[in-house]
């Protein structure tokens, strides 16, 4: 098996009752690769992402991350998730903790790092997302863009091998989207493996190594952005792109 495949999804199916959301997805992500998943709402792209760290349990198929089969009943999901960072559309910062505590809590409780070490790592990450002076602020005191950058720092504190972004900028006011995309872009440039569900075509075009277009629970088309976004082959991709790019 190729050690450089970080995420390997095979024949993934997911149903919610009668609603068959994912219909046989196969997807590999290489170490250091940035893969953007685009597609209309309801196409299953968020569900796919949530299956990669098992926030949703697949109905069928396998999800192998870093050589661990997460769908295997013997797999320690809590341990596996420490290697998979996730950033949510609604940020989901812990509102009863300061920015610093948000970044420290899992380091302390899950990785059992010392308070001093956790703090040092947290300060480094807060500096990296440009919010070192906000370490004592509570989430309610921060803008959406600041909250999302803290959430990215919180995920990075676990030193994950892969980062999942679930529409990380969709809940933001338009003027705050840029600061979050900038952090994501710098992460990509530093070689982080990223799986990004997004509506930001500009970001996908300039940062992604590969773009995956999903519709109706299947992967319709994938390839480098120059192909999928600039010169799509499939009719469904073309009509989706023309509706998002020309509004």
């Amino acid at each position, binding site marked *: 098996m190729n050690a450089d495949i970080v995420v390997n999804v095979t024949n993934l199916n997911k149903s919610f009752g009668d609603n068959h959301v994912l219909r046989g997805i196969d997807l590999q992500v290489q170490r250091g690769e940035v893969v953007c998943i685009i597609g209309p709402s309801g196409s299953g792209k968020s569900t796919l992402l949530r299956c990669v760290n098992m*926030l949703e349990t697949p109905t069928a198929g396998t999800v192998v991350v870093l050589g661990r089969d997460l769908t295997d009943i013997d797999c320690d999901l809590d341990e596996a998730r420490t290697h*998979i960072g996730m950033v949510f559309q609604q940020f*989901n*910062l*812990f*509102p009863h903790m300061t920015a610093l505590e948000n970044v420290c*809590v*899992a380091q302390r*409780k899950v*990785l059992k790092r010392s308070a001093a070490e956790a703090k040092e790592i947290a300060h480094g990450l807060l500096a990296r997302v440009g919010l070192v002076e906000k370490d004592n602020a509570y989430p309610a005191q921060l803008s959406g863009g600041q909250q999302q950058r803290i959430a990215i720092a919180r995920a990075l504190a676990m030193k994950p091998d892969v980062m999942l972004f679930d529409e990380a900028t969709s809940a933001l006011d338009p003027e705050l989207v840029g600061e979050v995309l900038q952090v994501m872009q710098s992460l990509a440039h530093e070689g982080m493996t990223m799986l990004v569900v997004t509506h930001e075509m500009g970001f996908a075009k300039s940062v992604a190594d590969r773009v995956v277009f999903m519709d109706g629970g299947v992967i319709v088309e994938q390839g480098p952005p120059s192909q999928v976004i600039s010169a799509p082959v499939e009719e469904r991709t073309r009509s989706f792109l023309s509706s998002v790019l020309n509004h």
Partner: protein
Amino acid sequence: MALSKRKKAMYMRYVMYIASIAILVVVILFIDWGRLGNAMFRWNIVKDQFPNILTKAAKNTVVFTVLGFTGGISFGLLFALMRLSTIRPYRWFAATYIEIFRGIPLLVTLLILGFGIPIATGWHWPNPYLQGAIPLSLVASAYMAETIRAGIEAVPKGQMEAARSLGMSYARAMITIIIPQALRIIVPPLTNEFVLLIKDTSLISVLGVTAATKDLARFGRDGVNQTANATPLIVAGLVYLAMTLPLTQLVAWMERRTKAASR
């Protein structure tokens, strides 16, 4: 000339004010205050109630309340978590328990557990405080379980997902992330439950009491029998108020504060 709508409303308000003040004046004028004071508030009997009403009776009421609340909150948390569990028998058990103990009057539960069980089994309550406090806490836990469950459910689902995505176990996420947030939501209603418990301890005296375990209500009742005057009950009522009013004011203050914070 017909009055306009707004003028009519204005005059109507004046009439309401004047009518309510008039009724109050009539009541004050026609009550026989001397007789009422003589039967319900005789100063020498008031003085006789102290200090025992505080050092013995109120103390017992507080002991029953604290025991009932401690038991109620522990079992309440357990049943709340069971109702939220993915394991169905847990949910069924907790739901059945909650329905049963919320559906039966406390007085009946007290009699069944306090008298019925000893008669049926030959087993005796080792301690008169527990005999009253355990049935009380079983009923309280049913109410508190629902309060706690509602508080936990009010924490957005994304909080649990974020905690799990960081590698926390379900239990760790509950303790570190969910319950601290739920607590903020449930402290005001839980304080209300505490006030209800203070008052409900007055039912425990139906189980029979020794001189040492008399609670406030029983103390007042026995005082009425001894003095042939209602004053001891009035004093007991005032002592209840002295305990409950600060707490209800505290709840009102907490609710105003959360309202202001969420603005």
